[in-house]
């Protein structure tokens, strides 16, 4: 285990362009993580994500559809996101059969210290469990089905 970086890899039965959209576009990111997401999906795009009324800074590092999406988050407002002041999340997408292999890494824990990492982990618990998400799913599926 690499203790400075968190790594995950999953297979998704959906095409890379679909997965890219889900991991990068603010409309979709709101469905799997924060309550609010406001940022341009372009390299250097600065914005913010919101959890229950409190905002966290969010800056896109790279956006290369449908292969790579990366961002930095948790830097202080007014600061430019850089190593040492934020966590870096990288999504790498590769075609795998008819689906996509999605690899995620998050790094920056060593540089920032564990108190920050714990706070970041707690954001995940806010309105984000399966109990919250599952009841919303049928309505969501209908919504995306109606969109070209």
């Amino acid at each position, binding site marked *: *285990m690499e*203790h*400075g970086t*968190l790594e*995950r890899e*999953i297979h*998704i*039965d*959906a*095409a890379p362009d*679909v*997965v890219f*959209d*889900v*991991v990068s576009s603010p409309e*979709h990111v709101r*469905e*799997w*993580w924060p309550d609010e997401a406001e940022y341009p999906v372009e390299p250097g795009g600065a914005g913010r994500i919101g959890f229950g009324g409190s905002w966290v800074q969010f800056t896109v590092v790279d956006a290369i559809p449908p292969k790579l999406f990366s961002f930095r988050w948790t830097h202080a407002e007014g600061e430019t996101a850089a190593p040492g002041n934020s966590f870096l999340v990288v999504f790498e997408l590769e075609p795998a059969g008819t689906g*996509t292999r*999605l690899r*995620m890494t*998050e790094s920056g*824990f*060593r540089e920032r*210290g*564990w*108190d920050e*990492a*714990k706070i*970041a*982990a707690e*954001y*995940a*618990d806010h309105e*984000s*469990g*399966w109990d919250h*998400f599952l009841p919303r*799913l049928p309505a*969501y*599926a209908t919504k*995306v*089905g109606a969109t070209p």
Partner: protein
Amino acid sequence: MSTAVDDDLWSAIGDPTRRRMLDLLLSEGSGTATSLSEHLPVTRQAVAKHLAVLDRVGLVHAQNAGREKQFRVDEAQLARAVAQLADVGNAWDARLSRIKRIAETIERNK
């Protein structure tokens, strides 16, 4: 524990040589700067410095036995450091499950 201690614990475990040393100490049960340096591409002096870092954050404890200090891993402290990483990992596992579900739902409705 204070933030500073947590940060130190994290930097202690963040170094690849120190992680290798922890692995060796866990598999061997205990070790000295000399015995560890035989398995590592660094000098005994460098190993001694790394052991001092690990000792300071409580990841290893030294016993004076014979000519050289004998080090053992504090498994409770190591478990605590690993658990902190697991908290962050669990958060991402939940997010990735949702990403998968959303993307597959969209794919099916295409």
